[in-house]
């Protein structure tokens, strides 16, 4: 049953967010409180007035603080049709009441609404006391509010980050991010580039450009992890118009820089290749996605790889320079 219903969900990414929220929101966050209640001795004619003036379509029936039933507009209409407005609520109510818990996720109410034909669910606390009532409208309102809040928070964060350059007064502002890259630590591979990417998104970077930065940062990061003996460092300098990534390490250095740039040339050992790395495409990928790439290396000393990517500018064919320092 559950699966059947899920299949009917429209497949847009927006729905996923709502689905997530339906699970996150609790009954107590969306329920209506305090609850209007009636007693079993209330006459149907009185109930009609309560429903009309309070604009409700159903209410729990309470006797000495305990819920003994629920009565809806449907019950009232039936009584009216039969001319039984003098009847007591206790005679016309539904004694078996479906309820939900205040601490439960809203999804439980959604399930109960779709499984049964009820239009409202009394909400109970841990001690079984009536603390609120929930309808489909409450859920919709709660969801809209939650989405609005999240959207707002997102906006605030983006706003703060993207205005950082305007808020700081200087002739030339840049943001420096430093990442230590340990060698041979494949478990944490990609962590630095993932953080770089996230930062650029927050700053309102163009998704296409951020993706290119992500790719070159990842390849540079993996090069340090795969090939170095002591790890290295990645420094990312963000300016309003460009990102510069400088990846440096202290060895072992590249023997033949020209050869290193050839597609498929690799010095990675077998076990690293088995992990899917060391295909000899890393530097090539960097040169393909960067606007400028400068590679300097001397065997026994270390390697310095500088990559430039222009933000919000038209892409030109990449400029690649290499230098084998002696």
């Amino acid at each position: 049953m559950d699966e059947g219903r899920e299949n009917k969900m429209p497949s847009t990414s927006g729905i996923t967010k709502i689905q997530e929220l339906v699970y996150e929101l609790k009954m107590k966050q969306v329920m209506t409180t305090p609850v209007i209640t009636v007693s079993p001795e209330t006459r149907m004619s009185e109930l009609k007035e309560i429903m009309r003036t309070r604009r409700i379509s159903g209410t729990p029936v309470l006797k000495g603080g305990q819920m003994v039933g629920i009565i809806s507009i449907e019950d009232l209409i039936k009584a009216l049709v039969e001319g039984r407005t003098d009847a007591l609520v206790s005679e016309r109510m539904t004694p078996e009441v479906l309820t939900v818990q205040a601490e439960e996720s809203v999804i439980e109410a959604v399930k109960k609404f779709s499984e049964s034909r009820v239009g409202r669910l009394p909400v109970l606390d841990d001690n079984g006391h009536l603390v609120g009532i929930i309808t489909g409208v409450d859920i919709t309102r709660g969801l809209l509010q939650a989405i609005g809040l999240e959207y707002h928070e997102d906006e605030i964060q983006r706003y703060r980050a993207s205005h950082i350059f305007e808020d700081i007064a200087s002739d030339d502002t840049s943001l420096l991010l430093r990442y230590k890259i340990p060698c041979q630590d494949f478990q944490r591979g990609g962590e630095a580039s993932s953080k770089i990417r996230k930062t650029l998104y927050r700053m309102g970077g163009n998704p296409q450009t951020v993706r290119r930065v992500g790719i070159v940062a990842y390849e540079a990061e993996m090069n340090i992890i795969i090939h170095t003996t002591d790890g290295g460092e990645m420094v990312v300098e963000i300016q309003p118009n460009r990102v510069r990534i400088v990846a440096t390490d202290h060895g072992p250095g590249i023997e033949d820089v020209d050869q290193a740039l050839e597609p498929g040339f690799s010095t990675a050992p077998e076990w690293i290749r088995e992990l899917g790395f060391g295909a000899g495409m890393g530097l090539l990928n960097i040169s393909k996605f960067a606007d400028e790439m400068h590679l300097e290396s001397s065997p026994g000393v270390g390697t310095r790889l500088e990559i430039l990517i222009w933000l919000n500018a038209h892409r030109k064919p990449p400029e690649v320079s290499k230098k084998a320092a002696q």
Partner: protein
Amino acid sequence: MTVREVVEALSLRVVAGQSGLEQQITGGYASDLLSCVMAGAKTGNLWVTMQGHPNVVAVASLLDLAAVVVTEGSPIEPISLQRAEEKGIPLLTTEQGTFCTVAKLAQVGIHETR
């Protein structure tokens, strides 16, 4: 086509990243070499590989891929599952090989995006 629809059509097992199942798939890409994937896979692609390494998730996340299909019942490291769960990237598994999986994906209308 969504990830969920592909899961059903190919009887794949969802081992992590349930929350990403409603993602739309823009196309497919198959390779076991991460650098090739970095260069070739497009945003929203479904990636078919036999690597179960955590960096598969890192690459999928960097490229905003829709999901990863791990073929031949390759072992997936627990850390990969954890990362995929965190990032909401569905990890799907099958006992079938990459060739067979890609053939079936083509049948249901998933192609390489150029």
